[in-house]
């Protein structure tokens, strides 16, 4: 665990160095393009967390092993945090580039917001049901439904031929210089390792909490 946390801290530091000191300034957008090095990896990490949560939900429904419920919940929680950060950094970037905090005409933005709100409602559903197999099953089914929105959100920009939100990755490869792409890859790796470290820490805390609750009930 400390090794993963140290790797996450080191990689995030390295990602900042690459984003600000190694990657060249974009000729079109100028310095505001540097938001890209955190915004896009955070968005991809949010997708990955929701996907991971859905996978754990599927495992729960398949095997009926209780531990997958907590793992799915923590992954969805991480995805929601990274999703909120995607919306916040994206909104700031939109203001810097387009002069507006939000553009409703962009399918990519609206579909990501829908995905975020869908997973935010997951917590309302989860905490409205008493703890037990019923809550675990309902949460798992909901998390699985949400995963269908990920490819829709991800490919919306290509399907709708949206020209508002920029398309960086096309069939011809990444539309950026080699150094920019390297900075992006370092940032993506940093965000993935950071998300994994936070996932492990949160899961550890929740498991410890559950074990202590059981112990307290046994002792009192």
């Amino acid at each position: 665990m400390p090794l993963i946390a140290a790797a996450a801290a080191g990689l995030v530091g390295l990602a900042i160095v690459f984003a600000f000191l190694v990657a060249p300034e974009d000729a079109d957008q100028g310095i505001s393009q540097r938001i890209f090095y955190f915004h896009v990896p955070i968005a991809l990490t949010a997708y990955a967390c929701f996907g991971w949560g859905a996978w754990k939900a599927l495992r729960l429904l398949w095997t009926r092993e209780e531990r997958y419920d907590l793992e799915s919940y923590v992954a969805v929680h991480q995805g929601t945090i990274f999703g909120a950060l995607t919306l916040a950094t994206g909104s700031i970037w939109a203001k810097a580039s387009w002069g507006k905090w939000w553009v409703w005409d962009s399918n990519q933005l609206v579909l990501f917001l829908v995905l975020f709100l869908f997973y935010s409602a997951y917590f309302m559903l989860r905490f409205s049901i008493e703890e037990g197999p019923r809550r675990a099953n309902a949460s798992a089914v909901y998390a699985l439904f949400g995963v269908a929105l990920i490819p829709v959100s991800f490919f919306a920009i290509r399907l709708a031929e949206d020209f508002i939100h920029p398309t960086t990755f096309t069939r011809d490869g990444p539309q950026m210089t080699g150094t920019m792409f390297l900075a992006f890859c370092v940032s993506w790796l940093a965000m993935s390792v950071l998300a994994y470290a936070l996932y492990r820490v949160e899961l550890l805390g929740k498991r410890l909490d559950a074990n202590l609750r059981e112990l307290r009930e046994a002792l009192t």
Partner: protein
Amino acid sequence: MSQSDYVVAAYAIVFVTLLVYVAIIAAKLARLERETAALAELARARRDTHG
């Protein structure tokens, strides 16, 4: 606001969120530590009572 201010704001929001998250986890771990100590105390008292 200048373009560089927006960049600073975007990166700052990520780090502030991360700091808040770590602070919440730290507070939770501190609570768990207190609860563990209380349970250990309870277990010791039971052991002493039962001989």
